[in-house]
């Protein structure tokens, strides 16, 4: 149902302002100290257009870092429970995410809808429209083309903008995208016939996914995990900035007789992640946890959910305090 239009930068800002005035919550890349990250904007002047990648992914719009599952109130022998109201979820627009981030919602949605449907995630995702921007530059950490992605990939986006002369080629990809465009259709002019590929950055493949997957499948007992994971310090930085990591913890925020049960981001890299109350820990060394991370994303998820758990955004490597560099490890597995 794809439709092509053209939108100038000025009209784009006008359109975003209209959406803002309509009451939509708009998240876009903004300066946060020395970093560029998603933040809610009140003015289009805050938006950064000139960066390779934001520090965090856009996943928090549907899978927030901390989220209330329900509230409770105890009174003598009884308990009253409160469900979070789905009508309190605001209509949101994430603007300026890259194709790797939009594609990251696919593995997330797969996990959250596997057998049991996670309505908290689904409700937030439904109230969110993704307006992505294609990539005209990349850095040494990017590898989207090696994992079935690309700088102009449309997977997961509702509208994909590609920077062309003085404006953007706008691909209206879904019904949601069309509805959003119609908030002020005058901003969108007819397609000028720009050839998208001419504007995208050229990113050659850095490894062959099938080869890596084959190697991984037979590598469970390999000493490569110990060698690769020596410098890993076991923090959660890679998991938290990753657009596809969905692991979470469930905790109680108790205040006397009242409280909330919430979920918050967690990482398979933490020591305690798999530890039993008895003290037994199935993955007690960092090398076992590093192996889990790679196998889960590149072997188990494709096997069970038919989707690769990585979109090649490179954030994990940029965020890692000790330069674990996932891409480097994948290339070495390939060779």
């Amino acid at each position, binding site marked *: 149902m794809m439709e092509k239009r053209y939108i100038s930068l000025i009209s784009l800002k006008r359109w975003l302002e209209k959406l803002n005035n309509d009451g939509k919550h708009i998240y876009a890349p903004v300066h946060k100290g020395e970093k560029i990250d998603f933040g809610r904007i009140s003015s289009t002047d805050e938006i950064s257009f000139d960066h390779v990648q934001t520090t965090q992914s856009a996943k928090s719009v549907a899978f927030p870092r901390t989220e209330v599952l329900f509230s409770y109130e105890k009174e003598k022998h009884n*308990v009253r429970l409160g469900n979070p109201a789905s009508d309190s979820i605001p209509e949101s627009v994430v603007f300026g995410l890259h194709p790797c981030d939009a594609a990251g919602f696919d593995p997330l949605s797969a996990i959250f809808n596997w057998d049991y449907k996670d309505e908290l995630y689904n409700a937030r995702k439904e109230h969110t429209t993704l307006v992505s921007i294609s990539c005209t530059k990349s850095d040494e950490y990017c590898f989207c083309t090696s994992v079935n992605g690309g700088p102009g990939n449309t997977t997961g986006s509702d509208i994909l903008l590609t920077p062309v002369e003085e404006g953007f080629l706008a691909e209206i990809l879904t019904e949601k995208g069309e509805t959003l465009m119609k908030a002020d259709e005058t901003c969108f002019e007819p397609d000028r016939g720009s050839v998208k590929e001419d504007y995208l950055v050229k990113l050659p493949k850095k490894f062959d996914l099938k080869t890596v997957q084959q190697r991984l499948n037979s590598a469970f007992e390999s000493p490569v995990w110990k060698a690769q994971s020596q410098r890993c310090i076991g923090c959660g930085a890679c998991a938290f900035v990753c657009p596809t990591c969905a*692991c979470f913890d469930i905790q109680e925020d108790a205040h006397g007789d009242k409280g909330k*049960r919430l*979920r918050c981001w*967690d990482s398979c890299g933490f020591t305690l992640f798999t530890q039993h109350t008895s003290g037994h820990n199935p993955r007690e060394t960092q090398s076992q946890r590093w192996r889990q991370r790679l196998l889960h994303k590149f072997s188990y998820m494709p096997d*069970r959910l038919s989707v690769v758990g990585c979109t090649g955004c490179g954030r994990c490597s940029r965020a890692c305090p000790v330069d674990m560099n996932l891409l480097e490890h994948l290339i070495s597995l390939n060779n």
Partner: protein
Amino acid sequence: MDSNIYLPHLMTIEKITQEAPGVKTFRLKFQDGQTASSFSFKAGQFGEYSAFGEGESTFCIASSPTRKGYIECTFREAGKVTSSLARLEEGDTMGFRGPFGNTFPMDQWKGKNLLFIAGGIALPPMRCVIWNSLDTRESFKDITIVYGARSVVDLVYKHELEEWNLREDVRLVTTVDPGGDTPDWKGEVGFVPSVVEKLSPSPENTIAIVCGPPVMIKFTFPVLHKLGFAPENIYTTLENRMKCGVGKCGRCNVGKLYVCKDGPVFTGAQLQELPAEY
């Protein structure tokens, strides 16, 4: 939202039984009448039990699906949530989410002999399937139960053990670890794996269901193998650290399987394929 998979059912604690030091059984009733009458589950499934204000803990459903109107869970006081549950009283409210996980394929066992082997606090997951098989006794041929604990006082379901002992259509062998017996103990003395070996059950047309602490499983499987049991005819339940119970939080992964979704019931053959991450 209509179907919040993280929202527990409210349960009233109808009866509390102290099974052994630190081990209690709760009989729970659904507070919502509609759920109470429509709730069903199959042997092998587990639930996430809430102590509101502390969190959730994972236990199997220890009662049988053939007995309606209530569910039971048995747990040992070990950490934050179980200690808080242990302080609750009859009449208090707690939470339950479930039933989750796969089931013992009892349909496939019809007409076969059943050999139940359990140790210590692992009798609860078995008790569900034992009750279920006793309640549908005609479906199965010989039923043998081998159960052991560290000492006499650590045996759980003491009342039921007596019942099973008195039944003519069940063979019950109880044992305690060497040193765990009392002067009037009439059962065996020895670790469960060695008692099984001594018993020397025939693998012919027999399904073995084994539940116990990792060390017991480690030594029982080779005994069964020696006796000629094929791995596809040995069933067990795995435990792993869990939080969501619905295959999303990632904690209970063993290789590419999730204990909460693909388990907790596994065959010996499936276990052989799994990496040793449980």
